[in-house]
């Protein structure tokens, strides 16, 4: 038995829509097999993982909290990936954004003003963009592989945060715990609807970013430039587009959004800096971007789905006693199935059962 691909004469619109859904279904099937192997009732486990978190208002707020950074980062990454720039270091840009944005509430904690929060957000985005500028500079001018450099910078950013928190920025009143001082109230991102839960304005920012980038991709020359350069650098050059400028543009944009996500997370959800500020948002956002088909509106939906895997992982840990590592497995599986189902958009898949048939096919050629 072998699998053969046959190129479709046209890209399948139907499968463009169906393939992410098919991937979700396949992930659920694989997940239930995994739960069965772990000795848990698959139906009950999937229910605890993916349904129960959606049934209460406060946990919908938690969903929005977890979806916000994923959507913010993934929307930026989608611009990168569409233009064929592989920024894999969003986790590091997220971290540096969080640090840069925290300068005001931690170092200048005596300064109370309504402009503190907007300044923090701007500084966070700037920090993320500057950190993303490193792989961009290296790729644009030294031809260095941006996948590897942006990834190495993740480890560097995390060690830098660790050093800050255990050193200069450690809270003097923190009983020697490695945390910074708590942010003053005016440095905290406010909740959207305080009466019912914790969700804060980062979610609104994420939706705004998604709409803006969607508009840019669809209706502006820049969006066209991104797609053309991504599909063929040569064709882009003939059209007068510069791939070097695109490296800068896509990295700075995605870095700024990742940095914004970082400061929003620290200011809105955590309230201080600590050595671990992200459960891998920067990496999960890569999955979000692909599951959303690199389209900002699709990314908004897929961000919510991936946020649910985090939430479900926490819930399942308590209710059915599976490890929170299951979350990562689900996320990995999902990306696997998304990528394989996307093949259906471009190809028809034929299963050839006998060797003879394949051989006669070759002879006929």
């Amino acid at each position, binding site marked *: 038995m072998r699998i053969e691909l046959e190129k479709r004469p046209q890209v399948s619109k139907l499968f463009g829509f169906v393939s992410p859904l098919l991937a979700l279904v396949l992930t659920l099937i694989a997940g239930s097999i995994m739960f069965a192997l772990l000795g848990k009732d698959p139906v009950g486990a999937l229910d605890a993982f993916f349904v129960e978190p959606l049934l209460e208002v406060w946990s919908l707020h938690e969903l929005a909290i977890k979806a916000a950074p994923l959507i913010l980062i993934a929307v930026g990454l989608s611009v990168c990936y569409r233009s064929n720039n592989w920024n894999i270091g969003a986790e590091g840009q997220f971290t540096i954004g969080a640090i840069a944005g925290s300068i005001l509430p931690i170092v200048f904690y005596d300064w109370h003003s309504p402009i503190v929060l907007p300044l923090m957000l701007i500084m966070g985005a700037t920090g993320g963009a500057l950190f993303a500028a490193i792989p961009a500079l*290296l790729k644009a001018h*030294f*031809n*260095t*592989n941006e996948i590897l450099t942006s*990834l190495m910078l993740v480890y560097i950013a995390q060690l830098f945060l660790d050093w800050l928190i255990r050193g200069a920025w450690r809270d003097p009143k923190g009983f020697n715990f490695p945390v910074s001082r708590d942010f003053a109230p005016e440095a905290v991102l406010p909740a959207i609807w305080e009466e019912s839960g914790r969700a804060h304005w980062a979610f609104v920012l994420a939706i705004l970013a998604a709409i803006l980038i969607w508009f840019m991709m669809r209706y502006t020359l820049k969006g066209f430039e991104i797609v053309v350069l991504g599909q063929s650098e040569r064709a882009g050059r003939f059209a007068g587009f510069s791939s070097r400028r695109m490296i800068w543009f896509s990295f700075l944009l995605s870095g700024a959004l990742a940095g914004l996500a970082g400061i929003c997370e620290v200011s809105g959800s955590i309230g201080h800096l600590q050595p671990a500020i992200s459960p891998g948002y920067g990496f999960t956002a890569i999955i979000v971007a692909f599951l959303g088909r690199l389209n900002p509106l699709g990314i908004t939906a897929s961000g919510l789905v991936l946020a649910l895997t985090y939430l479900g992982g926490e819930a399942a840990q308590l209710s059915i006693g599976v490890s929170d*590592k*299951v979350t990562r497995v689900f996320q990995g599986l999902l990306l*696997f199935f998304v990528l394989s189902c996307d093949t259906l958009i471009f190809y028809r898949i034929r299963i050839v059962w006998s060797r003879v048939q394949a051989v006669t*096919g070759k002879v006929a050629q």
Partner: protein
Amino acid sequence: MIFEAILLTVITAATPLVIAAFGELVTERAGVLNLGVEGMMIMGAVGAFAAAQATGSPYIGLLAGIATGAVFSLFFGFLTLTLVTNQVATGLSLTILGLGASGMLGESYVGIPGIKVPQVYIPYLSEIPFIGPVLFHQDLVFYLSIVLVIGINWFLFKSRSGLKLRAIGDNHGSAHALGIDVIRTRYLAVMFGGACAGLAGAQLSLVYTPQWVENMAAGRGWIALALVVFASWRPWRVLAGGYLFGAVSIGQLHAQAFGIGIPSQFLSMLPYAATIVVLIIISHNRRTTLINTPASLGKAFVPDR
């Protein structure tokens, strides 16, 4: 004596890097870019640790590490070779999946003392002053790494199959037209890469620090990928580069122990920073990198039937 001891630890630190990089080198020479090294490595580490615990034998552990890496790489092979998915994204998903699955599988092994692969004295040779203890009193995995570099170099540049593999990496269309089975060769190359990454992971959990710690690969898989670029796809240069990186990471550990006044976090950044610096130096000459990179690297191949 101290110098000798440091050299020994450098070799132990470099061995997983070079072994994983050897595997990736063969994969990339066949034109496939597998970014899942980190994931295959960590799966190899947990597979090896589990098998060694179950059987009590570190050697069965090593074999299990190799097998785990090879089998895990088949996920990647199926997606990129049969379903022609994007190699970059698929490799990343392999890493994400590997980190999650290894964390889950290894949960019950956290804190359990590991089984160390014993060191092998090579009679007479290990008695040579200085060189003896460093080169001939090592664990099995180190000897394997030396066998691998010699074997891979011979295979790639002296054997007929190696020529075919390189041809596929340089131009899969022409290789296919000449009747070479591109897909099958690439499957084998991917599995070889997975087996090597698995062995590298096994070295981590059975030799380097004989225990299981979540995420214990700590970016070594990515450094191995950088080593392949550094070495411009040549096995002996991988070995040289690997020892350089081993020296950097051991050097920073010793510097931390001596307390030289630089915060430990900055010293821990050194291997990663060194990777970036080395990549800049190597890549900066666009012409030479273009000549050395396998031309089909990362490109999907669909045979026209």
